[in-house]
């Protein structure tokens, strides 16, 4: 037995030496990005997931991209409005994909129609049809277009050539052929995705290469690490160079630390609390609860004090956010006000169910709310569900499953779209908002803000919602982008994901 044991040990040592030497040979112009979720299928027309979002803009190109508040074309050369619901999209006439296939207007039609028929990108249902006018021009007919929808629809569907898509045996699940400067060269499910610069990006005019299409590094590895502690550890040992998925709880380990840089920017998502209107029909009770929850506590306990307190449902990164809200009071913790409101309403407390989708951060927030409200005789029973179950109950008719809901939401375009997520009663099967409110004033103010997002319209809705307190914002988390000094300056896309090709090294 000893012999076998020593043989095994010797083999193990030998193997590990080989592996080590192999690992150290691979240096140079490469970067390793840490992401938390596995995309599973890299194909172009899959549904959005936490893993997919991290690699999407490096893998694919879209008609347009978002840069600050503007939407510069990537594949699209020009956009012409024909009428309210009809737009002409003109493509550059020299686009080729990684296999050398030229990209034409019929490919755009093909991609949008395939995505529609697969049905994983529900937003696309507001496109009526796409008409090919010439080799490089196609006409989009929309069924309806709310403010900000146009560009988000042009940015919704990844574009590939029909020839390449049909040549792929598995709908590009592991080996997509795209127009991006990076081509997927290795995908080990659940572990890593390797992308290499093709060496010949179709857009030769430097001034037209958008942020999402930049290619400053030769090789990109996306390393999938689901455990948040381990993601932090990997950055500490410099196995990964950059990550936008580091939890707030750990980010202080990299702030002002030699060899690391931290960039912080508002997260896409805002956390808010929705009242079940059937349980809390009294406006004063809703307001009282809002006053009784200390957002500072939540910020401190769940985000280590690194988030911002919310001033509405949404944060200040949206172009239609009204800056004046920052200076207005917004349910800052006030125990006396809460008690006064409860007394006025004759509310004496009780036991209520707070539903949330289970993550470490949500658990901390919910536990804080529970502790805060206990002072007012309000007993909160925590009802955590996995995301599938949470969403099922969130959109279902009221079955008493939840009395309060901790939810989060964000949009790639406008603040009014964040509001629409939970408060547009026309979107729900039961014809009420997510909190089971049927308020004509709320609906008309929301529609006004969505059709024309002037500061007046936005403010009118915000003030009305704040007064009614059907739901209210708790905290606006801040994304933390941490990287080693290998990365000189880090760049992210509008969704807060690392754009390794655009970073400087």
């Amino acid at each position, binding site marked *: 037995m000893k012999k076998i044991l020593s043989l095994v040990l010797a083999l193990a040592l030998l193997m590990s030496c080989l592996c080590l030497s192999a690992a150290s040979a691979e240096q140079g112009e490469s970067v390793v990005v840490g992401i938390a979720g596995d995309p599973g299928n890299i194909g172009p027309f899959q549904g959005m997931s936490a893993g997919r979002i991290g690699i999407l803009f490096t893998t694919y190109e879209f008609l347009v991209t978002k840069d600050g508040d503007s939407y510069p074309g990537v594949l699209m050369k020009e956009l012409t409005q024909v009428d309210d619901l009809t737009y002409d999209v003109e493509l550059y006439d020299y686009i080729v994909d990684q296999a050398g296939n030229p990209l034409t207007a019929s490919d755009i039609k093909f991609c949008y129609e395939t995505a529609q028929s697969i049905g994983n990108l529900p937003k696309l249902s507001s496109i009526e049809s796409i008409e090919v006018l010439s080799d490089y021009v196609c006409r989009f007919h929309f069924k309806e277009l709310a403010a900000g929808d146009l560009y988000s629809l042009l940015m919704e569907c990844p574009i590939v050539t029909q020839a390449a898509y049909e040549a792929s045996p598995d709908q590009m699940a592991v080996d997509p052929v795209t127009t991006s400067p990076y081509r997927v060269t290795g995908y080990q499910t659940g572990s890593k995705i390797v992308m290499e610069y093709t060496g010949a990006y179709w857009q030769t005019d430097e001034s037209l290469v958008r942020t999402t299409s930049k290619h400053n590094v030769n090789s990109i590895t996306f390393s999938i690490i689901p455990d*948040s*502690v381990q993601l932090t550890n990997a950055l500490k040992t410099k196995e990964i160079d950059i990550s936008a998925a580091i*939890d707030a*709880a*750990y980010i202080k*380990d990299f702030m002002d630390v030699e060899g690391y840089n931290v960039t912080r920017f508002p997260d896409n998502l805002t956390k808010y609390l929705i009242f079940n209107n059937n349980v809390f029909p009294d406006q004063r009770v809703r307001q009282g609860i809002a006053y009784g929850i200390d957002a500072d*506590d939540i910020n*401190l*306990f769940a985000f280590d004090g690194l988030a911002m307190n919310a001033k509405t449902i949404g944060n200040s990164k949206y172009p239609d956010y009204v800056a004046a809200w920052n200076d207005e009071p917004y349910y800052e913790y006030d125990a006396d006000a809460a008690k006064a409101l409860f007394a006025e309403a004759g509310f004496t407390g009780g036991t209520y169910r707070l539903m949330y989708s*289970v*993550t*470490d951060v949500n*658990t*901390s927030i*919910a*536990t*804080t709310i*529970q*502790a805060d409200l*206990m002072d007012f005789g309000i007993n909160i029973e*925590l*009802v*955590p*569900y*996995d995301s599938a*179950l949470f969403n099922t109950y969130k959109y279902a008719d009221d079955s008493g499953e939840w009395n309060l809901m901790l939810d989060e939401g964000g949009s790639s375009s406008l603040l009014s779209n964040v509001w629409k997520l939970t408060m547009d009663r026309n979107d729900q099967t039961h014809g009420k908002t997510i909190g089971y409110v049927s308020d004509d004033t709320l609906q008309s103010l929301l529609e006004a803000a969505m059709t024309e997002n002037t500061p007046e319209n936005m403010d009118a809705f915000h003030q009305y919602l704040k007064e009614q307190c059907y739901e209210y914002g708790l905290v606006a988390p801040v994304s933390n982008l941490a990287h080693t000094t290998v990365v000189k300056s880090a760049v992210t896309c509008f969704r807060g994901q690392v754009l390794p090709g655009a970073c400087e090294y």
Partner: protein
Amino acid sequence: MVKASSRQANAGVRSRRQGQLGQVMHRLAKNKLAMLGLFVMLALIAVALLSPWITPYDYAATSKADRYALPSAQHWFGCDGMGRDIFSRILYGARASLWLGLMSTLVSTVIGVILGSLVGYFGGWVDNVVMRLLDILQAIPGMLLSIAISAALGSGIGNTILALSIGGIPMTVRLLRGSILTVRKQEYIEAAEKINCSRLRVITSHILPNSIAPVIVSVTMGIGNTILQAASLSYIGLGVQPPTPEWGAMLSEGKAMITKYPHLCIFPGLAIMVVVLALNMLGDGLRDAMDPKLKN
């Protein structure tokens, strides 16, 4: 052993059993490790029962000032990220953790013993059918089964108990069945059957007492194992819900700060270790005491 009248037969078995039990207890009492384990367990159960009155702080009370406080005279085990006293949470957490461990093991043992004695005693097609059903249950990996059941039923202590206990049933049945098969052929069982003892009676007063030993040992160790499984479940976000403290959940909450504030993880980890250790020492002792061959 085989006596003429049923009364005497019963009396004989009983006194033999009592004698056996007495011997086992006697041997167990001489085993210092096992006694230590028993004492620790009894002490922990007492703590769990008394916890609402003996915890120095409210287990759910948060405090901004005490966040991540290190162990001190005020807070023996320090405070967690929400400023809650870890010592109080561990004392109170003994309730949920022990309850989880004891109840899941109890549920799986009771079902397992009923099924096991039926199967072992009747054999034949009963045996075949039940054992195949258990094969089905056993072929699904326990952890995945628990996760699926938790997903189906939702979290919470009752559902967690159910999720953890189902996986333990096949083992108990197999164990008991194996041990009954050896007892089944003994003369005193035949004797009891010959004198028209009811089947229920044969099973409960003759077969079970003589074949339950391995089950008892596995129960003591199973409790600790269940507590560990519960800890693993809470690592992936299932299990007992806050603010009720549970050691496994405390451990997985604390993992976030394992580098900076190791006390968040060390104390609940130690608590789990102490229980599992105590139960294993007790279980080892029981096994040795019940198998005289092993003891000099």
